[in-house]
């Protein structure tokens, strides 16, 4: 009986997008996603277009994060495939990447034309410094939840030192530290 009630209460039942809508939906996500595509993806996929329920979205995004590769791009491929198979995945991916890539390339074309000017270089150096700060902040915010837990903090510090100081290649760090950290996390659960 409870399942019937649950089903009825889910009048928020997900809608199924058409192929063009899939492309446009992800186009919309990209247009607004300023440095944080995931938040807008949730807004548009769950709240605005109702293609996914909240838990479905969270699960999909989590899967995209656990698996290697860009998170929201993984999400777009999963969502696209779910509704319209490989073609859907391509539509969602293109919708997501087309505008931002085109825009960024456009800016770079301008940069190549005027980048020799010291004013442009000076301004961009400033933007770069601020952008670096934003990324560091992202890392710190992600790391907040490890506060007071020496083991994860140690692994974060090791990864940071190995990559930024020792300049070890990324695959070596992930394949070297990854399994050890996972084993430690597994042991910690028991």
């Amino acid at each position, binding site marked *: 009986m409870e399942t019937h009630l649950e089903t009825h209460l889910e009048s928020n039942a997900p809608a199924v997008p058409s192929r063009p809508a899939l492309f446009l939906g992800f186009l919309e996500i990209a247009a607004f996603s300023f440095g944080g595509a995931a938040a807008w993806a949730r807004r548009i996929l769950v709240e605005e277009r109702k293609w996914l329920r909240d838990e479905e979205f969270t699960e999909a995004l989590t*899967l995209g994060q656990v*698996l290697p590769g860009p998170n929201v791009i993984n999400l777009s*491929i999963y969502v696209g495939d779910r509704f319209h198979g490989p073609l859907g995945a391509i539509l969602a991916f293109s919708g997501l990447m087309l505008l931002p890539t085109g825009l960024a390339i456009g800016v770079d074309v301008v940069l190549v034309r005027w980048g020799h000017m010291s004013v442009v270089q000076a301004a961009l150096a*400033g933007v770069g*410094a601020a952008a670096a700060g934003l990324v560091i902040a992202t*890392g710190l915010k992600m790391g907040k939840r490890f506060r007071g837990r020496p083991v994860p903090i140690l692994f974060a510090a090791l990864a940071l030192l190995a990559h930024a100081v020792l300049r070890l290649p990324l695959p070596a760090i992930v394949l070297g530290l990854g399994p050890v950290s*996972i084993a430690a996390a597994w042991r910690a659960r028991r």
Partner: protein
Amino acid sequence: MKSNSILLQLGFVFAGLSLVAVGGANVVVADMHRQFVEVRPWLTDREFSELFAIAQAAPGPNAMIVGLIGWHVAGWAGAVVATLAMCVPSGLLMLTVGRAWTRFHDAAWLRAVQEGLAPITVGLILAAGLTVLRATSPSWPLVLLAGVTVAVAVKTRLHPFVMLALGAALGLACAR
């Protein structure tokens, strides 16, 4: 440099990074610097940090940086090869696993993988930020700006664009 060789190298480097980019695109930024500024002299520090600044300022997924570097190094072909090389290997994995797990259960081993990889991702993202900061060859005011940006971004919900604009202004001011 033969352009075919450049495209092949772009493809191989990013395809390799695609499968170890645990936690997202930002984690490959420091390695991109290593591969395309240090190992191969394709970009200068300045160019690298400028491309990163553009990718951050523009809307869209962070992974854009990959296509932008591809573009800068080898035009349209470079942009396409780099982007696809970065996104397709991991995307195929996502597709395959996603289909096999239509309902994603809170399996204990999955949580362990997640918990285990998370701190490494954090370390790599911090490395990315530091690498970009180094690449801007910052003057002390800009280092300070980066620090202030960190504090503001962590503590407040101020729109990131404000800090980027301040960065531009400070950069200009320091140049005089």
